[in-house]
């Protein structure tokens, strides 16, 4: 048997070092676990501070003894490589392990063991842990805000159908794939808007804009039969003509009256709230801010000086101010800029404000993608005789947008995380509802549960979004 040297473990006495090291390491972990889970202090006969530090010392010596390079045992090498490369790393690893063991019992007892979920009043919460009863009772409010209970099926129906319509892209055949962009950029948002208007808001079936929508649908269907040479003029002239005809010549008052009879109960936007409002606001802002941002970024790189400087000014203005002041502006200052008899709904104002704000960020992200493309791409497209729009739609943007998927995803994430700010104008989405519920005299003192619940909800949403964007990025990654 070779001589044992404690300070430098080597391969010759592998067994001896291994057993001693692992034993010491496990003793330290068992000591900490016992004291944390069962409140038993094995080393209570020692003075306080020593008994506190002892597991750390034991574990440290243990890890030192098993730090043997190329031992030939696969698991040991893996362990050494990952958490035990040198003394400093071993020390940090031990601390992290101990902190996790120590913090598990209190967390477990707060979340599960001592928590209450039964009952339906504050008195049911007797344990020292969380009071999930509070979340259970207020769940409806956190999801739907002040929306009337009997009408909540409308929100569910709209969201479920919109969810299904959103998955159309996965089932499209190759032949239809080229229309998907048109579907997602124009048709789907329009359907969503109609759903929100008719179902969630309960608007009359015929309203001012429905003439516009009918005119648009008609002209798009007719447009397929028009030779491409005249298409541009056609799409400018015909929809407007149909709209004017519909609105002023054929029917007006009659249909409005008819529509009112058929409509669902009107629910004001002030009553909307909770998570569903978060979804509505983020959905529309996402849809609006992307095209605006796209045009701004193109404008910023344009040769036309006036458009360029107006775009730069616009982008830098929105990027320079905090969202909260923008919302302040939309709620306090913006009404001053409108004629006195004109009134724009609070929710619409907020959606416009957030869309413009985020559009500036989207514009900067897309500009990064445009700048990253080599000049050759522009030159090649031009040499094929493509005009400005053709070049951008078929050559430049597909490549540039692919490059900036992560950036756009980050902007969208920021948008979702910014939605709670709408409390400034008095709209209460989930965080706002929490603050309202917290001040309810019957349910005082459960702020923690509420915020933990909302944090989990937001974490799930945002984490899913970021993972999805990562997958998208991997899918569209092209080697260059």
């Amino acid at each position: 048997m070779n001589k044992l040297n404690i300070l430098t473990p080597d391969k010759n006495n592998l067994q001896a070092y291994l057993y001693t090291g692992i034993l010491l390491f496990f003793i330290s972990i068992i000591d900490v676990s016992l004291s944390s889970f069962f409140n038993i202090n094995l080393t209570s006969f020692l003075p306080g501070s020593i008994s506190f530090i002892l597991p750390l010392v034991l574990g440290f010596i243990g890890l030192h003894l098993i730090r043997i390079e190329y031992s030939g045992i696969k698991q040991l090498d893996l362990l050494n490589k990952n958490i035990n490369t040198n003394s400093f790393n071993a020390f940090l690893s031990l601390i992290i392990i101990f902190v996790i063991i120590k913090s598990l019992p209190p967390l477990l007892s707060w979340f599960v063991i001592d928590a209450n979920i039964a009952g339906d009043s504050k008195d049911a919460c007797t344990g020292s842990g969380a009071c999930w009863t509070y979340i259970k009772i207020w769940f409806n409010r956190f999801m739907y805000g002040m929306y009337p209970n009997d009408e909540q099926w409308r929100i569910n129906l709209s969201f479920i159908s919109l969810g299904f319509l959103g998955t159309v892209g996965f089932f499209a055949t190759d032949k239809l794939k080229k229309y998907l962009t048109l579907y997602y950029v124009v048709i789907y948002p329009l359907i969503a808007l109609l759903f929100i208007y008719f179902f969630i808001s309960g608007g009359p079936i015929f309203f001012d804009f429905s003439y516009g929508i009918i005119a648009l649908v008609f002209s798009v269907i007719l447009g397929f039969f028009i030779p491409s040479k005249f298409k541009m003029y056609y799409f400018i002239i015909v929809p407007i003509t149909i709209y004017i005809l519909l609105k002023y010549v054929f029917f007006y008052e009659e249909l409005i009256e008819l529509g009112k009879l058929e409509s669902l109960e009107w629910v004001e936007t002030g009553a909307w709230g909770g998570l569903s409002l978060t979804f509505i606001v983020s959905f529309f802002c996402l849809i609006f801010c992307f095209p605006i941002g796209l045009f701004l970024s193109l404008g910023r790189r344009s040769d036309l000086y006036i458009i360029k400087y107006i775009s730069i000014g616009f982008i830098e203005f929105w990027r320079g101010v905090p969202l909260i002041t923008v919302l302040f502006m939309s709620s306090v200052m913006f009404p001053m800029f409108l004629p006195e008899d004109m009134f724009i709904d609070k929710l619409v104002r907020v959606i416009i404000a957030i869309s413009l704000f985020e559009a500036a960020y989207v514009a900067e992200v897309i500009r990064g993608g445009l700048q990253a493309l080599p000049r050759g791409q522009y030159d090649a497209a031009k040499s094929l005789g493509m005009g400005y729009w053709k070049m951008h739609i078929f050559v430049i943007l597909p490549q540039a947008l692919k490059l900036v998927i992560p950036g756009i995803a980050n902007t969208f994430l920021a948008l979702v995380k910014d939605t709670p700010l709408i409390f400034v104008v008095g709209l209460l989405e989930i965080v706002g509802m929490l603050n309202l519920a917290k001040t309810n005299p019957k349910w005082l003192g459960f702020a923690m549960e509420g915020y933990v619940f909302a944090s989990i909800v937001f974490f799930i949403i945002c984490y899913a979004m970021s993972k999805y964007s990562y997958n998208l990025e991997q899918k569209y990654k092209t080697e260059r």
Partner: protein
Amino acid sequence: MNFNFKKLLPQTLTILVVILVFGFFTYNAQVNMENRGIAFGYGFLSQESSFDVQFSLIEFDGSHSYFRAYLVGLLNTILVSVIGIVLATIIGVVVGIARLSKNYLIERTAAVYVEFFRNIPLLLQIFFWYFAALRALPLPQKAEPMLGVFFLTIKGFFVPSFVWNNLDVFIYSIIAAIISIIFVRIYAKKKQETEGKQTPVLYISIGLLLILPLLSFVLGGSSFSIEIPVLKQMSQTSFTYEGGIGLPPELIALALALSLYTATFIAECVRAGVQGVGKGQKEAAASIGLTPNQVLKLVVMPQALRIIIPPTTNQYLNLTKNSSLAAAIAYPDLVLVFAGTALMQTGRAIEIVSITMLTYLSLSITISIFMNWYNKKIAIKEK
């Protein structure tokens, strides 16, 4: 005359639209203000504001002007931003380096922290700290002192303060030390370039920073004493601490939330920066015989900083703008004091919101101009 019609038309149209929109808004604003009997103007800034602010760095009460209220708000915004930036940088750099660690546990812990804190809205985090976490702190009369002099209570964090005599001499001495360090650096660089000799700049700098302020104590007559906060009974049940510096819980919650949230982004910047330095660079540096420390200091860090600094500055800017969320928990920052209270009192929406926006705007434009200049300066000059 050779007008390019294709270029002229869209520009003219854009100008027309912009003018029309602005004209429409201005006209309406004029009509609305006439109806309400308000005259546009910034004269109200010198009027007496009759409200009080909970926490301010400069003296303020109802008899001061609205302009001073604006200053109070601005200073509070700057205060919380600076605290947040310092904390966020420290946490962000540590976590960013931990993310690069070869130790699996450390890397995972840092990753969990980053994923968790950046996927939760900042406002929610502020509410969490303010309404849930800090409310669990003890009352002033029951607080245990930390290290004997710090008191963390539900009414805020109380720390000892320095009471200075001849503070200005001390500050001058520090300024003098900094200026002389700059001169020493220039001299050392020149010497190295011409003679190839290295000067121990670091030791000289530390020495200067210690000796000059020390001289100000000995010769300049500046001195300080420490004032420790003392518990004081306000009424039967209400206690507070007097003396020292009291940081209100709003400030603590805001600074905590801002720095923990922004640190996740800074950590990612740091990670991207260090990873962005090519492996070949490190190997090349090692192969010409530089020690690991020298590789880090002379090869990796200068290149990594080039990648790290621009996005990090952007995060600092974001933090400053995000500090306006203070309004949600009633920390008296620019938005709450000026765009909130002052606006309610005067009703001058256009003037006040425009001043607030311009303040933030000028702040961020200054920083972005500086960043553009800096980017140009450090950009790799390729042939």
